[in-house]
């Protein structure tokens, strides 16, 4: 069910939400958090859909804050979606025009669920300092997505410079399963220190940079980074130990192989994670992610300069494109 409330106020929206609750049943009562999406008109539908899917695991109220034309009179257009059109959530889409477009936070305050966490998500471009931004200040958890930014590397640097507890990035969420597999590989014998590591991934992949930073920071060993053509994501991780190399390879973006030294190659599905899955993952824990913080603020800086030498990994061979300096 979709209800349009053009030229309205937040009081009217609130009233309508309460009315819907009475008419349809206990809508917001079981919702555990409010999720604010700060987004442009053109990307809003995709973002709302992703949030809806994620809300199947974490029932929430989704508020999409869309800034429209800044010239002209201030106006607030609202749209409420519940039931079949909103997954397990209730969606409030707020379109802001005129001077109001720069004061999105003011329309948020009355619509946040009482005494429950607020999660803010910038699907595309995020403010320079998300924690200090008007919406960011209201949120316990601030989700950015460096991979979607126009310059992912510069974006990662901005996140690192301005990190505040509660910040997180979907580029980090996307490598959770990789990290899980690598950790599980070190759970098995031989129990030897990792002497060096290599991460191959797209030159524009902040996930690959974070992976390298994470390994560098946790293993305290030199980590090199091989750059593959843009858009390929993370393609391989190699951990070098005295008894040999452990390779986790995902050439096709779907199935990976894990080759521990002296043992048969093991295969496992390792598909790229969908947006909804990543978001649901982010909503799982709302406390600051210390490991992300360390990776971002210390790990990235520990990485070595990019390297090309990699034997037996043809698919991970870097393109002719010029290498960029690794982000500091």
């Amino acid at each position, binding site marked *: 069910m979709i209800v349009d409330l053009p030229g309205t106020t937040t009081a009217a929206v609130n009233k309508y939400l309460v009315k819907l609750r009475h008419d349809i049943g*206990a809508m917001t*009562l*079981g919702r555990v958090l409010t999720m604010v999406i700060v987004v442009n008109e053109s990307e809003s539908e995709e973002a709302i859909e992703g949030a809806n899917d994620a*809300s*199947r*695991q*974490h*029932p929430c109220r989704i508020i999409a804050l869309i800034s429209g034309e800044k010239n002209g009179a201030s106006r607030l257009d609202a749209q409420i979606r519940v039931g079949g059109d909103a*997954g*397990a959530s209730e969606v409030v889409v707020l379109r802001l025009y005129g001077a109001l477009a720069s004061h999105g936070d003011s329309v948020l305050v009355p619509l946040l669920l009482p005494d429950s966490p607020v999660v803010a998500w910038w699907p595309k471009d995020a403010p320079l300092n998300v924690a200090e931004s008007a919406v960011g200040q209201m949120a316990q958890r601030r989700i950015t997505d460096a991979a979607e930014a126009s310059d992912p590397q510069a974006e990662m640097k901005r996140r690192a410079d301005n990190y505040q507890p509660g910040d997180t990035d979907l580029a980090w*969420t996307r490598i*959770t*399963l990789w*990290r*899980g*597999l*690598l*950790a*599980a590989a*070190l*759970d*098995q*014998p031989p*129990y*030897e*220190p*990792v*002497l060096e590591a290599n991460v191959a991934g797209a030159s524009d992949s902040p996930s690959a940079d974070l992976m390298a930073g994470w*390994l560098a920071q*946790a*293993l*305290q*060993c*030199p980590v090199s980074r091989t750059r593959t053509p843009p858009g390929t994501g993370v393609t391989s991780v190699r951990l070098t130990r005295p008894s040999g190399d452990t390779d986790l390879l995902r050439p096709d973006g*779907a*199935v*990976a*192989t*894990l080759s*521990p030294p002296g*043992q*048969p*190659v*093991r*295969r*496992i*599905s*390792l*598909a790229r994670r969908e947006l909804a899955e990543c978001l*649901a*993952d982010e909503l*799982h*824990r709302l*406390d600051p*992610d*210390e*490991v992300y913080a360390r990776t971002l603020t210390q790990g990235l800086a520990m990485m070595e300069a990019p390297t090309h030498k990699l034997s037996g990994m043809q698919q991970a061979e870097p393109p002719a494109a010029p290498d960029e300096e690794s982000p500091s």
Partner: protein
Amino acid sequence: MKPTAVTQGQNPLRDPQDKRLPRIAGPCSLVLFGVTGDLAHNKIMPALYDLANRGLLPPSFSLVGFARRDWTHENFTKIVRESVRAHARTPFHDEVWRNLAEGFRFVSGTFDDADAFDALRQTLQDLDEERGTSGNHVFYLSIPPAYFSTVTQQLDRSNLSRGAEGAWQRVVIEKPFGHDLASARELNSAVGAVFASDSIFRIDHYLGKETVQNLLALRFANQMFEPIWNANYVDHVQITMAEDIGIAGRAGYYDGIGAARDVIQNHLLQLLALTAMEEPVSFGARNLRAEKEKVLSAVRLPDDLSTSTVRGQYAQGWQGGEQVIGFLEEDGIKASSTTETYAALKVEIDTRRWAGVPFYLRTGKRLGKRVTEIAVVFKRAPHLPFDATATEELGQNAIVIRVQPDEGVTMRFGSKVPGNAMEVRDVTMDFGYGSSFTESSPEAYERLILDVMLGDPPLFPRHEEVELAWQILDPVEEFWATQGRPDPYPAGGWGPECADDMMRRDGRTWRKP
């Protein structure tokens, strides 16, 4: 820069602060006995696919089916595929499936066929070499308990129960864990003779359910419930597991077992233990079991079992718009069967916390609807400063943990009815995981199978708990054996009249869940 040390138990990539890192089990294969059974088809195989889909299965996980059928690996793969297509919770992805199916093998044979077990050993060795399953094996006995000892002896004979250095062998068994104390001990010694007690995982799928685990969170993570969770405030506790289905073709299993052995001995007494136990020192397996065992050992049956136990048998009737036959008319049930399909029981717990608080347990088939819940019903307020007429409709406060379906928690308390007269009536306040939430939250079997592969035992009852539960139930079964036929009750209702009489004698009533 000196690289961080890696040792067994110290993995620099596993930071305790890294709470999002998934737990992925080490390489292993799972041998499934009872491939053709309902449980394998409806629960186990779909759960394996769902785990694979979520990326939680170890790399090169392999599944070996063992059954008497004359199947090839392809036949077996087809069977698993059908089960996954029909029952998996997560969407079907060809890549995930292809990758998973590469590790499927089938071994044909009977449980007493030594050659078949040698072939099984060979298959597992091949898998270790080809796919790197590292000699770690789970033996899932989804078969009638009568075969447990045959199978475990064969596993022992073919050296499958003893792994190589550093590898583990675990065995998973399903209820029923015997039909009385003596048979439970026999069963345990049969399996225990071959596998160490730490390697035996008994699945009670209720313990894998989110709401049951949430019961621990509700009680021990909050300040507002535990202070009133005792005899000072609690009047009584009702634990209900109602099913709307009949015995549905399981006559062979059900006849002679009955509702009490099938449900009360395991599920309901486990729920009772979690509801009534003291706070464990930690949620580690040892401490959790210690508390459960303590409270189970304090459970006492009333002296007069004729007034504190009830059994019934469903008769024909109308259930949810459908006319259904009675238990005695079911296929494979003798007209003289005294097996109960409804059982209710009152027990007390001899501890300071629960002295004088009865726990009523009931379960039955062909009842009004399918529901499992724990209701903690509180005493009335000691003084009501209202006119007698104002509180006529006020019942007792209650906290209800809804285990299934519609998982969540309900609280019931009095509230003023709007209007100028003072009138107080019961209202309920709901916490629901929400229907959509449960759809995406892991099935109990996923959690439990993963825990077996990780060797994480807190959610699995040990044989001590099983034996304590039989000690509680055995006298009741012995008493019932002398009492002739169970009382009939019409299908689609809430059990026999005498169950209501039992509550009425105590001045209480059953909740209508």
